[in-house]
C-alpha cells in the first residue's frame, strides 16, 4: 500500500471514530455538499484559467492549495448514513460508500494522489502548460471515477 492510500485510509477511519456516534445528521450532509461545491468551484476556476480563457494564472496556486486542503478532509465527510435517505436534505451518496468501504477508500486514494500530483506541480511552478492540463485531466477523471461509483445520477 502506498503512502497516499495509507493516509487516506487512516483519515477515513479517523473520521468514522471522531464523528459523534458515526451517524450523519442533516447538518453533516449539508456540510458535505458545501465542501463538494467548494471543490467544484476551485476546479471550475482552474479549468478556465488553464485553458487560457481568463488571464489569472498567478492565482492558480491559491486554488491548488485550497484543493489540497479540501481534499485532505474529504475522507472525513462520510460518516455512517443512519437514515439520511429519509432526511429533508437530498443526498446522492450511494450506500456502497459504507457497504464497500475498501473500494471507496481506494477511489479516494486515487483522487488524493491525482490532487497532489496536480496541485504540487502548480505550487512548485514547474510544469509546462501541457503538463498541467494533462495532470488536471487526470484529476478530473479521478473525480469522475468517484462520482460514477459512489453517487446517484439524480
Amino acid at each position, binding site marked *: 500500500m502506498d503512502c497516499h492510500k495509507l493516509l487516506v485510509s487512516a483519515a477515513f477511519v479517523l473520521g468514522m471514530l471522531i464523528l459523534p456516534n458515526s451517524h450523519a445528521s442533516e447538518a453533516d450532509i449539508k456540510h458535505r455538499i458545501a465542501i463538494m461545491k467548494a*471543490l*467544484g*468551484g476551485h*476546479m*471550475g476556476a482552474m*479549468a*478556465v484559467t488553464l*485553458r487560457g*480563457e481568463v488571464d489569472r494564472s498567478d492565482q492558480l496556486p491559491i486554488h491548488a492549495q485550497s484543493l489540497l486542503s479540501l481534499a485532505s478532509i474529504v475522507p472525513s465527510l462520510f460518516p455512517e448514513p443512519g437514515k439520511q435517505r429519509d432526511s429533508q436534505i437530498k443526498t446522492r451518496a450511494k450506500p456502497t460508500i459504507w457497504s464497500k468501504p475498501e473500494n471507496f477508500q481506494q477511489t479516494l486514494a486515487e483522487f488524493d494522489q491525482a490532487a497532489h500530483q496536480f496541485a504540487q506541480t502548480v505550487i512548485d511552478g514547474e510544469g509546462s502548460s501541457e503538463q498541467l492540463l494533462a495532470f488536471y*485531466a487526470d484529476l*478530473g*477523471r479521478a*473525480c*469522475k471515477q468517484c*462520482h*460514477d461509483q459512489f*453517487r446517484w*445520477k439524480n
Partner: protein
Amino acid sequence: MDRHRVKWKSAKMGISLRPWLAVVLLAVPVALQAADPQAVERGRYLLDLAGCVGCHTQEDGERLAGGRELETPFGRFTSPNITPDPDTGIGQWNLDQFRIALTRGESPTGEHYYPVFPYTSYTGMKPSDIADLWAYLQSVPAVSQSNQPHQLSWPFSWRFLMVFWKWLFFEEGPIAVDPGQSEQFKRGAYLARALGHCGECHTPRNFLGVMDLSRELAGTENGPEGGVIPNITPDPETGIGRWSAGDVDSLLVMGMLPDADFVGAGMGEVVDNSTAQMTESDRQALIVFLREIPAVYNQLSSGSSD
C-alpha cells in the same frame, strides 16, 4: 492465408479430401488468420469511437461478450456477443456479413435488427473503417456466452415488423454533409452522425422510434434508461450555446461540466469508453461540428447540462 495456395493444395490432394479440408478451415479460429496489425490497431480506435464496448459489455462481464441490458420505451433489449466465438459470437461471420449488419441492419441469417443497434448511424461508416473494425474484432479473445432474448412489448416484439419500419424510415448510405463545410466540420459530422452515433440518444424520436432529424441533437425526455438526454445544439438557452470550446473539450476529455460537476450514467460511460479516447484532432473536429450545427430551442423538463 494465401487463397491460391489452398486451391493448389486441394487439387493435389484430390477431391475426396476437400470436405475434410473445409472442416479444418472452418475449425481454425478466425483470430488465427493473418490480420494486418495496423488495421487491428486502427480498428481498436474505431471500436472506442463507435462505443461498442459500452453496449456489448455487461457490468463485471467479459469484454464484448454482450449481455448488457438496455431499458427503452419499447422494452428491454439485451446486447449480443460480438467476440469471435464461433457458437455464441460472430466467429462464423465474414467481413461482408459484418458490413451488411452495420450498414443495413441485417444479420447473416437475414434477420432484421432493431434500431437499438445503431445501424441507422453506422450505415454512414466508411468501408475502410468497417474493415478495420472487423480486423480488430477478429483479434479479441473469443468468449463463449450465449445471447439472451430481448423482452419487448407488443407490437415491437414482432421482429418481422422491422421490414416495414426499415422500408419506411431507414435510409442506407453515407451521411449527408454540406460539401461547402470545412474538412474539420465534415470529420466532426462523421464522428457524431456515423461512428459516435450521438443522435441515437440526443435526437428526439417519435412514437415509432424514428429520429426527428429536423431537431438533430436537441435532446429528449425519453432517452435510454428513461432518462432526460440534454440538448447539445448551440442553442444558448436550452442547449450548449453558452459553453466555450474549452467547456466542450473538458466534457469530452474528462466528463466535466462547466460548473465542474461531472456527467454520470450513460454519458459517463461514453466519455470513458469513447470521447476520452479520441485523438486531439478528432476531438477538435467534433467540437467544431457541435458548435456549428443549427441551434434548436428545446426546453426539457429537468437538467440541460448533463
